[in-house]
């Protein structure tokens, strides 16, 4: 059970940390000043979630590691985040599509997780739920603006949706780790969130005059540490300081 809980919390932590890292890359380069602030804010929420989750994972593991060791001193194949969050920022439409897919899943996920029998997870979820509500609203509004904006923004937004769609399947994967914890009342069964997720997307994409892609084949591998080629480059930057100065405090 401890192993499963560690793995489960680590997955959530990696999702938050890697998405926060990607969003942080925008800093100073966003299309408007308001979005420079907005994306930094979304990044900050995810880094905050990552801190809480890594700390809890470290506690569950009980081997004396801390949040930074988990984030900065694991190798690529040990990361358990889903492939969606590690996808490169691309243009603003891709960043928004990534956030839309993710937050539309995470909002009901955190909502459900507040009912977890694990008090720490429940507390983390309560805070994260409020943040995810903002993230989803932010991404939805932009999806609608871009989808129902100019011909160019419509094209870019649809391309972004189509490009990232195959990475959404992983959100609903449930392996033995998940099943065991769902049975124990600790974890959320992601399958139960699929209908709501699709409904949210349909509503937003319809207002955005965009098309929901057909199901089709889905990418997988993130939960098993098989990431995209871009991920190693992300890590080399993210982990550089801790790698170059092992054992220092900052």
């Amino acid at each position, binding site marked *: 059970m401890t192993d499963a809980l560690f793995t489960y919390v680590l997955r959530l932590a990696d999702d938050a940390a890697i998405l926060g890292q990607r969003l942080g890359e925008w800093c100073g*380069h966003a299309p408007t000043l308001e979005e420079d602030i907005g994306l930094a804010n979304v*990044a900050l929420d995810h880094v905050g979630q990552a801190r809480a989750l890594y700390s809890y994972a470290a506690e569950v593991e009980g081997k004396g590691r801390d*949040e930074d060791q988990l984030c900065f001193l694991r190798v690529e194949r040990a990361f358990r985040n889903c492939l969606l969050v590690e996808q490169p920022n691309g243009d603003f439409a891709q960043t928004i599509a990534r956030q839309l897919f993710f937050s539309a899943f995470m909002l009901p996920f955190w909502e459900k997780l507040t009912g977890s029998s694990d008090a720490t997870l429940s507390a983390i979820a309560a805070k994260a739920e409020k943040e995810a509500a903002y993230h989803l609203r932010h991404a939805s509004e932009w999806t609608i603006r871009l989808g129902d904006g100019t011909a160019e923004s419509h094209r870019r937004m649809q391309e972004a949706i189509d490009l990232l769609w195959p990475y959404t399947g992983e959100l609903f994967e449930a392996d033995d780790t998940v099943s065991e914890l769902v049975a124990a009342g600790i974890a959320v069964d992601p399958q139960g969130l699929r209908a709501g997720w699709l409904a949210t997307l349909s509503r937003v994409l319809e207002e955005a005059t965009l098309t929901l892609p057909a199901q089709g084949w889905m990418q997988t591998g993130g939960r098993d540490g098989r990431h995209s080629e871009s991920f190693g480059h992300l890590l080399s930057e993210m982990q550089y300081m801790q790698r170059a100065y092992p054992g220092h405090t*900052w």
Partner: protein
Amino acid sequence: AERLAAFQARIDAEEKIEPNDWMPAAYRKTLVRQISQHAHSEIVGMLPEGNWITRAPTLKRKAALLAKVQDEGGHGLYLYSAAETLGVSREELTEQLLSGRAKYSSIFNYPTLTWADIGAIGWLVDGAAIMNQIPLCRCSFGPYARAMIRVCKEESFHQRQGYELLLEMCRSSEEQKAMVQDALDRWWWPSLMMFGPSDTHSTHSAQSMAWKIKRFTNDELRQKFVDATVPQAHFLGLTIPDDKLAFDAESGHWTFGEIDWDEFSRVIAGDGPCNRERLSARQKAHEAGAWVREAALAHAEKRAARRAAAQVAAE
């Protein structure tokens, strides 16, 4: 002339001038220049710090840095808004920045080379900025004064955070302390330059003082900064990179060496280590984001048209 006298009387009585009040054209022009330069500095200032967000050594520091850069964007927003109350649009101001006509604080033309630079910017650059800005909280122009109150509060927090970051590094290892010393060596003099030319060469100053846009001369503020900062450096166990630095017991001030005014003018004029990178980064972001801004505008227009049509239909 009568209006001018009445205006000056209000200023002398420490009343706040508000956007709809009458004001001399030169007062307006001076404020627009100063507020927009200040806003541009916040925006460009996001870049050297943003350079380290992806490489922050801990999650806690990454979060703090993100929050700080976000605050700076927020300062830029208030300040652009304050400038807008004087009748100049954000588009105009942005265009001035991107074309290279508008100035911003020349300190941001220096690169952040190590993580210690992030602490040094908080400690020295925000420290110098606060020194400059605290008197502006009593500036005669209301919107600017009010913006400054909020900005100063946040920047004090950033400064303490920067100092604390350096303290942690200095305590952690000799290697890190050397990084901090190196950062101080590189940022000290550019920080002193942030207060502008010495009083003997400063244009604009006397009129700005009379208008209570300025309350202290450049050299007065620089001296305050040096007096406040030198003991902080010593507490960290660092050496200020200035042979001439000495404490004058009589005046209670730290005397210091001559600033390299050639470097100051050169960097202001465009030949600093990062001037071109900074401008080019802003330009690229602006160009790459053009389609997004156009889409937002187009969508707002569509919505407005649909709302209007619905209203007509309802009538």
